């Protein structure tokens, strides 16, 4: 794309950028056509039908049904094309693929704290490998923020009380600005940083280099003991709370008969509002940890719970392979 080097379109650096820009150009072209059409007609009419005699009046044309139909249907069709094209991009944008490299992002007044799954932490900086699907799992400690990367053409609000996600695949190495795009108070404009997109080897070196931060699952294990979670959630399942071994990613049967997928949002809700969903066969005894644990600690606890995989090493790989072969 030649245009991206001009000042009109900023540099394209993600899998979304080309599609967003192409749709932008389609809307721009359509808009320019109609804007010019109206302006040219107004100019022509102004010249051709300008008043020549003070008492003259215009020809009493009252309207035209065929014209009304034409200029209703044409904009309608063009607008529906915009809608459908935009919807396709948006569905892709909202549905992260399954093979993502996950990074946890916490927005707080007025900084971004990021943590990679292996424990490397960053503040107002994000390092990602080029060509790899990356998913940001985002939470806010206070007000609504928004993680926005213009060169990637994407953004997503970071909302207190829930997780939101943002995925992308960087397509070009380099450093790109990211911003907080949702007004969040005094130093909103300082809540910015840089995404550094690196070659995979470089990224691996970066990840292993630097001071080794505590691994989030390890930190979560400490919290698990500190808050005495371990006294009820026994690995045997015989405690007052359900066992958490193998929980993450599984389907959980609830007391009201429904089932729920145990994902990040479910784990978070169960820590902060335990009474929202009661596991079948257990009493609603757990107190809320709302206000006691920070969003960061919730992420550590989630990482720890994620690490508690069911001790059935043979179940996955061998069972999958022949199954796949048959297909």
């Amino acid at each position, binding site marked *: 794309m030649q245009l991206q080097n001009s*000042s*009109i379109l900023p540099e394209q650096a993600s899998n*979304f950028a080309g599609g967003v820009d192409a749709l*932008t150009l389609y*809307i721009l072209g359509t808009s320019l056509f*109609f*804007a010019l059409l*109206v*302006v040219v*007609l*107004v100019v022509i*009419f102004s010249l051709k*039908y*300008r*008043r020549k005699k003070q*008492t*003259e*009046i*215009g*020809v*009493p*044309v*009252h*309207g*035209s049904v065929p*014209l009304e139909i034409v*200029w*209703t249907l044409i*904009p*309608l069709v063009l607008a*529906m094309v*915009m*809608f459908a*094209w*935009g*919807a*396709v*991009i948006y569905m892709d*944008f*909202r*549905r992260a693929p399954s093979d993502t490299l996950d990074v946890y992002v916490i927005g707080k007044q007025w900084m971004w704290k990021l943590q990679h799954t292996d424990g490397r932490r960053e503040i107002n900086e994000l390092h990602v490998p080029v060509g790899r699907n990356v998913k940001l799992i985002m939470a806010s400690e206070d*007000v*609504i923020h*928004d993680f926005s990367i*213009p060169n990637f*053409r*994407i953004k*997503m*609000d970071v*909302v*207190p*009380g*829930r997780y939101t996600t943002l995925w992308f695949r960087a397509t070009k190495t380099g450093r790109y600005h990211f*911003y907080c*795009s949702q*007004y969040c*108070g*005094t*130093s909103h404009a300082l809540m910015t940083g840089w995404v550094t997109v690196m070659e995979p080897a470089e990224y691996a070196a970066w990840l292993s280099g630097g001071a080794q931060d505590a691994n989030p699952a390890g930190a979560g294990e400490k919290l698990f003991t500190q808050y005495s979670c371990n006294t009820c959630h026994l690995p045997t399942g015989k405690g007052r709370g359900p066992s958490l071994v193998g929980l993450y990613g599984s389907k959980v049967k609830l007391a009201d008969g429904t089932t729920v997928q145990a994902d990040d949002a479910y784990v978070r809700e169960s820590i902060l*509002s335990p009474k929202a969903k009661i596991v079948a066969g257990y009493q609603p005894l757990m107190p809320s940890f709302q206000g006691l644990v920070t969003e960061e600690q919730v992420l550590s606890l989630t990482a720890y719970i994620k690490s508690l995989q069911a001790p059935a090493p043979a179940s996955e790989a061998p069972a999958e392979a022949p199954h796949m072969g048959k297909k």
Partner: protein
Amino acid sequence: MSATESRPAEQFPEKHYLNADYGIRSWLLTTDHKRIALLYLVSVTFFFFIGGIFAGMIRLHLLTPKGALVSPEVYNRLFTMHGVAMIFFFLIPAIPAVLGNFFMPLMIGAKDLAFPKINLLSWYLYMIGGGLALFSFMSGGLDTGWTFYTPLSSVYSNSAVAPAVLGIFINGFSSILTGLNFLVTVHTMRAPGMTWFRLPMFVWANYATSIIMILGTPVVATTLALAGMERLFHLGFFNPQLGGDPVLFQHLFWFYSHPAVYIMILPAMGVISEIIPTFSRKPLFGYKVMAAASLAIAVIGFLVWAHHMFVAGQSTYAALAFSFLTMLVAVPSAIKTFNWTATMYRGSISFETPMIYAFGFLGLFLVGGLTGLFLGTLGVDIHVHDTYFIVAHFHYIMVGGAVMGYMGGLHYWWPKISGRMYPDTLARFSAVVLFIGFNLTFFPQFLMGYAGMPRRYHSYPPEFQVLNILSTAGATVLAVGYILPIIYLLWSLRYGPVAGRNPWPSTGLEWQTDSPPPTENFHVTPTVTWEAYDFENRPDLGLDKPLKTDDSGRGHD
């Protein structure tokens, strides 16, 4: 005015609404809709200049990347108070409460609105609300953004949120009562012969606007009251730590605040639909379609609110539905634009000041409306949402559209309001200055926005400086375009030539009575025997019969 010169000079009427009574009490206790409209004119102009001063300071501050003028705390207050003053206390009341109040009864041949005392009450509620907002501005200011997003506004802000929210709450009742008054007036007080399809389009537009005011305003008033209660009494509506949902606030807020954009733009469209036929001396093209389009905008406009929330964490399918509906609401706006253009076809077009404003409106509304397509499209919104692109877009609609419409209407009806003409050449010049200044201020913001500059930033990366300087330069030109009319309109009150009853001339009933009108509007209740904008069958206007007969357009509508 060439049109007036060719007609016999008219005398200024001896008795009219302005000299019917004297003294401050005769104004503050008046129930005359025309005097109440002037009370609104003075008060909305006051808030416009308050908001304008804030805007000027914002633009000065953004001259340099680090911020040239004020601290972040002050900057955040400036853009918040700019938004609150302009939206709640200027744009929403401007056209309905000033021009609608003054002209709706005149245009339908009524003596007053249906409830004159409630009309006065509306103004007092507006003043109380405005007073509370000013109190908030002066006692710590307001730094939540005009959108009051929770939990920032309800928990974290250290500014005077409570009085501002209370002010907007009270002001909401002013809107509701005005809307109610308009609806009842149009239904019950039309002059003999003034059927629904003879109503001028400005009346239709205010009718549609009133529906939005009545249905939407209670929701925003309630929402802001809930946010206020959360702030004062820690009741958990929106704060997740108290079990609330911050996204719920956005749904409730935009349920009103998106239709509020149509409260601003529909009456402006109504003004344009008066001006273009008058200065083309032709019926409005597609009258019934235009009326239907106004109502369609009012109705569909209620179903698009969550397009402000495509990246706010709402469900994917909700976003799809709202994007679809948003694209639908673009269609009636497109229809209106084509009909205005077609109205000029085979007209007899003259270029007095109101027409220059109408051209300005058309140009700016085109840009504003078409850039709305980028934002309504999901795939582009994820990039331009909350950037300067959207700042530019809504200024093109709300300033380019609504304010150009308001200025056009003010110049169109000024001879009727004051009985005097303003200097037309100077007024046309200032309309052009306004148009150029506006584009210079806001067009660069589209480019900044697409390049990624977020809105509400007190400092910004240096690569955006050139565009910001252009924008600030434009704002100074724009300021000239707003100050000039104040000067020459005030000048005209004393020194302007006498306008006469119908200077343009125009077909509406409001032009059949004295300028300025008597307190009771008409000396004799008029009877309407003509269609709207029917120049052809109006020998009383002193105009020719149409030169060419037309056999293609008649009877098609």
